[in-house]
């Protein structure tokens, strides 16, 4: 099995668009959550806060109305097939490739693949289907499907960047981008590909976020400074965000040979399922605990080796408890690693969260700190015995686990190690 490293990070997030600014915000626990006028102004939606992505405006169903940074220009026929998440992904991908010291042409080759994760675009699906019901399919944009269904990321990006290796998308809700990273790791470790571009993205729209309010899992708090507070006793749901993050994974020897900067080694991963409920996590975090054990085994680590765990914890009542129990069951022998949930600062990015949080781990490992778990005034009792950081610490984590859980009780854990 070959060794896999991360050589590039591209960010389009509510905390910023480059590793320096994002690192600052993580270290100093500065969140990106605001009172979001479209939610505040709608009496049917009981939520008021969200974490938008600065520099982008994508509320229109017509891509030509969107605003985005000037460093990328799109041909009309490309633009018209995009959904907001694909738009963000174009930026995160080009930034990641540049960060890895590669040029875009070099990723168009049979040994470079693209794995993606997003839930598609609820907004574009809704718009295109309503229009179809009203005027018939012949009068609808012929690229409607391409911009709507889950897979919109891989369709658009594989075409735009002329990807010729392995391409696929992963659809496991909030664990999707974890799966994308894990299976991308496998492609390289098993010798099928030498380089994998892994892209997670999610729309930031009412259509994507508001349904969770109907599920009664979104925070109805109107205070952006405290709404997202994983592990706090008074947490009351998560906050929505979107954006895109791309990681470039490469076979380690080849990466070293070309003088690439190595953020970390992706040492392994594990996945396991709760077998419990379509939306709620197993009360004891049974699947998550096994996923962590499998990740440790795959990486060749013992529980005691782990310095930091970036928890999935979304700030929901039940979910955070499951995670606490899973962590206690894995780290049951003496000292707990440092633990935090960066969702306090970003909110929950759904399909994007796993890879976004992995990128936060990489930033922390490279900038020499462990981000705290913000907004905790009263720690939940279940967290007793766990070293949940309320403040960031200036210590470089060497071995890190990043957790993600999704609908259906899926759990994916990725192991990252300083290279």
């Amino acid at each position, binding site marked *: 099995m070959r060794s896999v490293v991360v050589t590039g990070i591209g960010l389009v997030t509510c905390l910023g668009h480059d590793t320096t600014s994002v690192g600052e915000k993580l270290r100093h626990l500065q969140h990106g959550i605001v009172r979001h006028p479209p939610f505040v102004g709608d009496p049917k939606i009981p939520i008021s806060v969200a974490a938008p992505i600065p520099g982008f405006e994508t509320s229109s169903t017509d891509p*030509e109305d969107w605003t985005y940074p000037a460093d990328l220009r799109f*041909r*009309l*026929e490309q633009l*018209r097939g995009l959904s907001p998440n694909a738009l963000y992904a174009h930026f995160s991908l080009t930034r990641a490739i540049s960060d890895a010291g590669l040029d875009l042409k070099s990723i168009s080759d049979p040994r470079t693949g693209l794995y993606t994760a997003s839930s598609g675009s609820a907004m574009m699906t809704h718009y295109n289907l309503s229009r179809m019901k009203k005027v018939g399919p*012949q*009068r609808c*944009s*012929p*690229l409607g499907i391409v911009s709507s269904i889950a897979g919109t990321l891989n369709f658009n990006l594989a075409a735009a960047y002329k990807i010729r290796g392995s391409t696929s998308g992963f659809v496991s809700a909030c664990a999707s981008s974890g799966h994308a990273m894990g299976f991308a790791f496998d492609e390289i470790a098993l010798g099928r590909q030498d380089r994998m571009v892994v892209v997670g993205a999610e729309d930031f729209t009412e259509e994507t976020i508001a349904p969770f309010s109907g599920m009664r899992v979104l925070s109805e708090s109107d205070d952006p400074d405290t709404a997202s507070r994983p592990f706090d006793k008074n947490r009351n749901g998560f906050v929505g965000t979107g954006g895109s993050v791309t990681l470039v994974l490469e076979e380690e020897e080849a990466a070293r040979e070309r003088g690439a900067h190595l953020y970390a080694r992706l040492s392994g991963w594990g996945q396991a399922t709760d077998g419990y409920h379509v939306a709620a996590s197993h009360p004891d975090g049974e699947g998550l605990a096994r996923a962590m054990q499998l990740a440790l085994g795959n990486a060749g680590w013992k529980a005691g080796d782990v310095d930091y765990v970036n928890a999935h914890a979304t700030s929901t009542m039940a979910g955070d408890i499951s995670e606490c129990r899973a962590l206690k069951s894995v780290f049951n022998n003496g000292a707990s690693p440092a633990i935090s949930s960066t969702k306090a600062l970003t909110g929950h990015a759904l399909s994007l969260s796993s890879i976004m949080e992995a990128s936060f781990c990489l930033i922390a490992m490279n900038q020499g700190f462990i981000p705290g778990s913000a907004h905790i005034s009263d720690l939940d009792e279940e967290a007793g015995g766990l070293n949940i950081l309320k403040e960031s610490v200036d210590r470089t984590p060497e071995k890190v686990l990043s957790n993600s859980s999704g609908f259906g009780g899926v759990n994916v854990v990725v192991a990252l190690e300083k290279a």
Partner: protein
Amino acid sequence: MTTAQFNEEEIRDSLKRCPESAIEAAVQFASTRNPDLIPAIVMGIIERFVEPDVRPVLREGNDQIRLLEDLGIDSLLMVEIVILVEETLGIHIENEELRNLRSVGDIKEYLDAKIKGLPIPTGHNILKFEEIAAVMPHQSPFLFIQEARINGVKAEGTYHITGDEAFLEGHFKGNPVFPASLMLEALGQLAVLLMLKSENPAFQGPIKADSIYFVSCDGVRCHKVCKPQDIMHLNVSLKKIHPPMAQFEGTILCRGSKVAKAEEISLVFEFERDESTAGS
């Protein structure tokens, strides 16, 4: 032909990224249905869908501009253009009718006929080499048309000089150049193809392929040479027809410039006749 009634606001909204001239024309067209407004509307809609750096090309107003090669309009973008044109002009366009619209001129001609309720100009089909060889009395190694389009009383065709043509070895030695006489021959052959494939009433009936012969030419000029790997773009159009004679004019373009012109090529021909009436 269905007519959708649009008020001015709706028109302005659906044409919102088109040039103002197109929007004004569309608003007027909604009440007058004057076919003369169509070019402005359609050009404006096409302009809205092409890349900004290509718009100056479009504005030149040249009807020969090709949708795919010159404007980058692929089939999906074409669908979007068609949807907007349908909405604005209140007409319905069949996919079949679209297949053969290759240039700006084609579109204008097509829509003009559509609005006036005239028959759609047919014969916009592209003929591939096999179809050409099947009807022509000429054949390899003396057939100098690889692909052609018949357009009523006009035809265009292409011939790619491969460099393997036998006569190039002797013309000239060490310096292969496509002979001027064969440039004239190619134009004449395209005229023959036009006579055999056009359904335009000007030709008055099916023509017998093996009856067509060259009679005369006039005003033939060659401006530039064509060499191996060049693609010659041939164009002919019918000038006059009084059976048994038909007169054409033709030009050859290569690499964007005119390389040859024939003001007059005259051919003699006979119509296809029932065997039993032969000789009458």
